């Protein structure tokens, strides 16, 4: 620690880097070799919906937000013919709990 660093101490970006890495790697480790999980989920969910209503495959949007304690998997399915009935499924906690502590 030198004089200048004491005089101009400011909030560092390293803690942000550490937190981002911890969240990211917890997910990556849990899903090694299962990288197509999203695709599988999407397929199965669409199959269930398709049993009951007619849907177009390319009108399905999947979004994922990896959070620290909870992740959100959001699937938008546009049901044709009835504009107002676009189904929105938000599956909270679709991902299993993170493996172990950091």
């Amino acid at each position, binding site marked *: *620690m030198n004089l200048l660093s004491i005089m101009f101490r*400011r909030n560092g970006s390293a803690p942000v*880097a550490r937190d981002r890495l911890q969240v990211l790697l917890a997910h990556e480790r849990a899903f*090694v070799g299962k990288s197509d999980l999203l695709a599988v989920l999407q397929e199965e969910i669409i199959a269930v919906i398709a049993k009951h209503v007619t849907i177009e495959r390319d009108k399905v949007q999947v979004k994922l937000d990896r959070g620290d304690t909870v992740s959100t998997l959001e699937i938008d399915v546009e049901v044709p013919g009835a504009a107002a009935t676009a189904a929105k499924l938000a599956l909270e906690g679709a991902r299993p709990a993170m493996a172990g502590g950091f």
Partner: protein
Amino acid sequence: MATVLVVTSGKGGVGKTTSTAALGAALAKQGQNVVVVDFDVGLRNLDLVMGAERRVVFDLINVVQGDAKLPQALIRDKRIDNLSLLPASQTRDKDALTADGVERVIQQLRERFDWVICDSPAGIERGATLAMRHADAAVVVTNPEVSSVRDSDRIIGLLDSKTAKAEKGERIEKHLLLTRYDPIRAARGEMLKTEDVLEILSIPLLGIIPESEEVLRSSNLGTPVTIGNPTSAPARAYFEAARRLRGETLVVSVPAERRSFMGRLFGRRAVA
């Protein structure tokens, strides 16, 4: 009993080749019989960093394919007798490396040397997986920076699943070598701290190599820093890392360059 050590990282430019050369020379100076092997086929550089670029005749692929005998391809270091280099091929592509051929060469090297240090190419493709394939231990070179740490995590996963040892149900010994570390910036919270990286990757620390102009100077000169300037901060860190590789227990410190009063005050190295 020889030890095959892979120096790997996933990410490029973090200091694998520099560290291979510096650790190899440090171990050799400590009396060990060492060979450094370049696995970066097509983009070889270990010869340049070792200062042997004008002496390359045969290479790893010539030996793998049987075009040359191993002793013909080995280049003995001019400064240290018990240090040799097996260069990579500059012209052929990575597919020329076969799993069987690599195994045969590694086996032959095991019989001749105490340490076989494999300099892995960046990435997770064939060259990188073959470099780690027959390793007993790994040095994971990491910069205190998010993309490097993420890639190291990926490589640690591969070391635990794709190596011959892992497939036999044995554990490969893994060591973290933190390079380009700036203790002042880390203390200011501008750079990931050693503890942060250790906590995230959770493998034992082999050493911390401080950011230093001596490292670039060494590669400019083709002299591993542990030969060219053995009292410099990075060289001392590499010597300590080499002793830890040999089983000594030493407290890890960050060697610092000597600074003048003004240098200390303004956080710069004094002009000598």
